[in-house]
């Protein structure tokens, strides 16, 4: 089992969600987050005063998947979250030691 965490641009969420559903990913957790990478934020100017806004709004998507489709999920997110512009985001994949569905008590792959 793998945990795929993707930081993406907010307006790409629907496209990414539809593509993940199409490859059999049935659930996801989405969080509104702020951050920056190489983009280093942007500059806003108000009445002649410049302000650097470091932390830009992003979405953090978390999906828990079987190891066999983890790579596919990463590909799908990469394809559908990409604009080609700086600030498209990043994807991290980590192993999951154990999983449990709270309602039924099912464990590991049965719980996904």
């Amino acid at each position, binding site marked *: 089992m793998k945990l795929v965490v993707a930081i993406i641009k907010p307006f790409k969420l629907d496209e990414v969600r539809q593509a993940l559903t199409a490859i059999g990913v049935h659930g996801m957790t989405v969080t509104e987050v702020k951050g920056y990478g190489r983009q280093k934020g942007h500059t*806003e100017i108000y*009445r*002649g005063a410049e302000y650097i*806004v470091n932390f830009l709004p992003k979405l953090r998507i978390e999906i828990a998947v079987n190891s066999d489709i983890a790579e596919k999920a990463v590909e799908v997110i990469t394809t559908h979250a990409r604009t080609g512009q700086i600030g498209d985001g990043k994807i991290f994949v980590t192993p999951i030691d154990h999983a449990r569905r709270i309602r039924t008590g099912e464990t590991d792959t049965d719980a996904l």
Partner: protein
Amino acid sequence: METSASRSLRASAALAAAGAIAFTTPAAAAAPSTIEPADTAWMIVATALVLMMTIPGLALFYSGMVRKKNVLATMAQSLAAVMLISILWVAFGYSLAFVGDGTWIGSLDRAFLAGMGMDSVHPGAKTIPESLFMLYQMTFAIITVALVAGSVADRMRFSAYLLFSIAWFIFVYVPLAHWIWGGGFLAQAGVVDFAGGLVVHLSAGTAGLVAALVMGRRQGYGSENLSPFDLSLAVVGTGLLWVGWFGFNGGSALGANAHAVMAILTTHLAACAGAVTWGALEWSTRRKPSVLGMISGAVAGLGTITPASGFVAPWHGLVIGALAGIICYWACTSLKHRFNYDDSLDVFGVHGVGGLTGTVLAGVFATAAIGGTAGLIEGNPKQLAAQLYGVAVTLVWSGGVTWGLLKLVSAFVPLRVSREHELEGLDISQHGEALQ
């Protein structure tokens, strides 16, 4: 060559135009008074429009430009102005400003509206009930006091703001209103101010500048991100101010007539020209026209046309609005940074400089056929001199008295919140509430 027929036609047109504002002239003051339903209806609407300019208009305009932790405190200042000034206006403000013919101050004959009956009329507005004239002028006093708060946004203690506002209303607004609108020495000197370029905008703007200088810059000014909380609120506020300004300037004709419509037309055109000019300047110098820039330009245009709105032709409104966009843009983006004062929401840059500019330009563009006053272009340099005199008196009086009152208030209550409270935000520290 001009024929005698064309001369007489032009003269009768001028007379007809002057007749539209007859009730605001001394000759009309002697005419018998009749309360006219149409005038009364329009002035009720205009009164409501001007009250709307403070809450929600100014409250939204200002609170959209501060940081999230100071939104409620900024709105509270506008709210407080409505409550406090309304009561003080009825108690003695109206009487001292508009009743009696003193050179320096009015009388207390109408204190607590004593003697004001259903049929009472004010000599300067004989076709509407005096109670309505009093209410209409009340809304001007309210917004003038509320305007000042923008300069000291994010740092003034609420109790100090209340004390200062009461004192400023008594010692700056009421005398100025009497001097210019109530028949005082500036009116006698020929100074004209249709809807408050001096009484409202320059007096509030100057007070704002002095208050910003006395109180000092905000924590983090120039180094931290003080960007606006929510400019969409400021846009909504601007829209309400803009429409409200139709009552502000159009209502200053004191009747439902062509003069009011002409003032509204010049007002609207000036707002558009101001917004276009400010946006274009940003576009050319910063590569993007900001929303804050466009709404700032609109408000600058509105403030600048205010003193001239009833005296100039529509196309003058466009010129005055465009000049407002250029001059106020320079004041807010260049002058302020050069002298490094922190006028938080640019009350001086927009209202002070705008009110000053418009008052001077009224002396240049005033058209006798429209407002009964000829300006420089029509060969009357004395009007421009009178306007400059009015500007000088307003600057000195509002600036000097504001400084004195702030020193006086600070003897009783610290003007500024503590450093910790400023960092925490005024919403929590002054009102115990916060936006989530």
